[in-house]
């Protein structure tokens, strides 16, 4: 579980990102092993979203490195990282609003074969696979509904389905239960817990109960730095973490 294990699915070292003098990431280092579920928690402004944006290549780091399944991918464009097995469930859904849920997922499935097929329609297998995945995330019967017509909870489910459809090896979940009712939260947490154990998952989540349930290990981010890294028990017992985050989160 050391910081420099060669077999890490995802490894960042001394990752830095400044926005006009503000250090959003101030030397973040951690490694996530294959199949591990890693929680990332921390107060607002700790750098969680910036970390995800740098990991997906949407924001360039000002320093440090990112390794994806052993390969240095620092500064690579987002689409290349996706091709190398990285997927993201966005905090604010990034969907194809007027398209049917099935078409949303099919676009993700079709990414593997590439778009340059100007004379062939989407193969039936893609649509079947899309419908299957929609069933898995609890959207059976909604295959023909446009994304924009779904409820908030359903949209989160679709967002997850789209992220999963690319068959990633590493999945970034950005607040999967944001804005959900307790029942919806429980359902999506069950769903994430049931995902294939070979899938490596990094999860940012404000609902600490969800994080403690899903994560094998937890990294605590504070002011752009990892201030603690350990199992749920270790994190619960960490004085500093309770000071900056958990104490408040539990009391709130």
């Amino acid at each position, binding site marked *: 579980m050391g910081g420099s294990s060669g077999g890490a699915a995802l490894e960042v070292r001394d990752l830095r990102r400044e926005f006009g003098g503000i250090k959003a990431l101030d030397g973040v280092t951690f490694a996530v092993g294959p199949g591990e579920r890693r929680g990332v928690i921390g107060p607002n402004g700790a750098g969680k979203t910036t970390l995800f944006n740098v990991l997906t290549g*949407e924001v360039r780091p000002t320093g440090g490195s990112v390794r994806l399944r052993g390969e240095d991918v620092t500064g690579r464009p987002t*689409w290349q990282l996706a091709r190398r097995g990285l997927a993201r469930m966005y905090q604010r859904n*990034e969907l194809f609003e007027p398209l049917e849920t099935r078409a949303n997922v099919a676009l993700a499935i079709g990414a593997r074969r590439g778009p340059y097929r100007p004379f062939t329609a989407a193969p039936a297998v893609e649509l079947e696979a899309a419908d299957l995945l929609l069933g898995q995330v609890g959207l059976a019967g909604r295959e023909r509904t446009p994304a924009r017509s779904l409820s908030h909870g359903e949209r989160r489910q679709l967002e997850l389905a789209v992220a999963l459809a690319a068959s990633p090896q590493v999945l970034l979940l950005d607040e999967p239960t944001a804005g959900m009712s307790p029942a919806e939260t429980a359902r999506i947490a069950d769903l994430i817990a049931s995902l294939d154990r070979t899938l490596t998952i990094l999860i940012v989540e404000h609902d600490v109960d969800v994080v403690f349930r899903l994560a094998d290990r937890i990294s605590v981010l504070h002011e752009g730095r990892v201030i603690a890294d350990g199992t749920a028990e270790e994190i619960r017992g960490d004085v500093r973490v309770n000071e900056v985050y958990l104490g408040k989160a539990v009391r709130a």
Partner: protein
Amino acid sequence: MRRVGSWAAVAAVAAALVSFPYWTAAWESSRYATTVLRDMLVFATFALSLNLLVGYAGMPSLGHAAYFGAGAYAAGIAGQRLATDQLHVTMGAAVLVAGVLALLIGALVVRSSGIFFLMLTLAFAQMVFAIAFQWTEVTGGSNGFPGVRRPSIGELDLSAPDRVFMLVATVFLLVTWLLWRISRSTYGRALIGVRENERRMRALGYDTTRLRLSAFVLAGALAGVAGALAAYSARFVSPSDAGIGTSVTAFVMVLIGGAGTLLGPILGAGIVLYIERVLSSSIPYAQTVLGLLFIGFVLLARQGIIGLARRALALATR
């Protein structure tokens, strides 16, 4: 059976369109309707090519006339310099020049979006216009390029007006068919994905810059085809064919008809040319009518005529 029926209907409409000059010859001796319809089809082809950008890929180009004009000049100049009237040479030159021009300009502009994309495409098109206007030895400059040769296919001479019409109608149908296939394909679906959410497309592993560039080049090459048809039709190329007025006209056609639909740009081209050519001789302010119509659609019916028709249909069948 239904499929066979609809194919038969499409074939019948296509045959009627291509043979229009012949079955109307009896009552249409002046060939006025044939000429207007020919120009409608030329502009419908042009508008369809722009619609691939505006309607499908979500790239509002305000400089699409650059490729139309480039195709028109290329067809005319290739015919003159190579001393040939063969369709594959002059049309090939039009497609090649317009496509390469779109590749060069596209490589510089496709990374931008929205209003920046609009302004950049306009700026580059104005440069193309300036070249057409000032490179007198090649393009004829402000006088335009006269005497464009009408094409032949082998020994088949297409220079008679009715045959030019048939050529235009046939190419229009081919381009429509091509774009129909594309709109239903994986590629067309990916362009719609780029239009609706480019960030998500990138996160899924699509190289959206390359996708946008491919659409830009394809649309440019097809605009070149339309430009060649315009040059054959008028036997003349004017620098204004590459100018902002032509770009705006095509844009208006796409928006009035309905961006992102196949039928919309065709209807739009028909309506705009009907107002400009036919109505303008009977009512005094035809251009004003066109302007008001455009404003009306922008304010009240963004989806154009096709969008209105769909809404009406949805209300009727509710």
